[in-house]
């Protein structure tokens, strides 16, 4: 069974600095998708960034980038130039790309990030 592990329950960073959130996963599959979702205090989860396992290039979305290490099954999120609005719970998630799966997400427990002024 696939699992997703986020080993940092809480983190904090000073505004304008860079922070990296860790995520590891376990799967026997070769083709899958990985995601980072952000859940601000208003509770609505929104997609931050998405990585397809067959792509070697790390995904980037503005200040957010990932370090995808397929062999190590690691998928960390780097937030550059942290802003107060980045304060949220961050969830790492996995989904299989095999035909039988409709893409249900397997989530980690989350990392609560606080950006301090």
């Amino acid at each position, binding site marked *: 069974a696939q699992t*997703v592990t986020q080993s940092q329950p809480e983190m904090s960073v000073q505004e304008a600095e860079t922070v990296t959130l860790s995520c590891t996963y376990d799967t026997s599959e070769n083709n*899958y*998708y990985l995601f980072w*979702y952000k859940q601000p205090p*208003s*509770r*609505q*989860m*929104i*997609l931050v960034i*998405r990585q397809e396992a067959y792509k070697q290039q790390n995904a980037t979305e503005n200040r957010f980038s990932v370090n995808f290490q397929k062999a190590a099954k690691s998928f960390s999120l780097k937030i550059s130039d942290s802003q107060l609005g980045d304060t949220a719970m961050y*969830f790492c998630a996995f*989904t*299989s*790309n095999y035909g039988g*799966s*409709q*893409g*249900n*997400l*397997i*989530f*980690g*427990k*989350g990392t609560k990030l606080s950006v301090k002024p």
Partner: protein
Amino acid sequence: EPEVTQTPSHQVTQMGQEVILRCVPISNHLYFYWYRQILGQKVEFLVSFYNNEISEKSEIFDDQFSVERPDGSNFTLKIRSTKLEDSAMYFCASSERQGRSGELFFGEGSRLTVL
């Protein structure tokens, strides 16, 4: 910007009672999901729904649970006889494409408290 809406935001019920949680997905989306998060635990997949039928469900989604899309806009989750362990935040989500290739849009959640 279109969003997924859920009602109620919080419901308190007695054990053994039936509960219906409602969701209005984004209008042009075709895939619908329910997830739940017990306090302090991971967000867990419950069920996915496409073309008016369940496409996938987890072990959690037993006979006490059911979903339907009664009127083409609402997407409901029914728990027939609630148990204490059903207390959780329930999230509805929708996507334009299958979840593995498409972005899931989540609602703010419905908190269910079973006494």
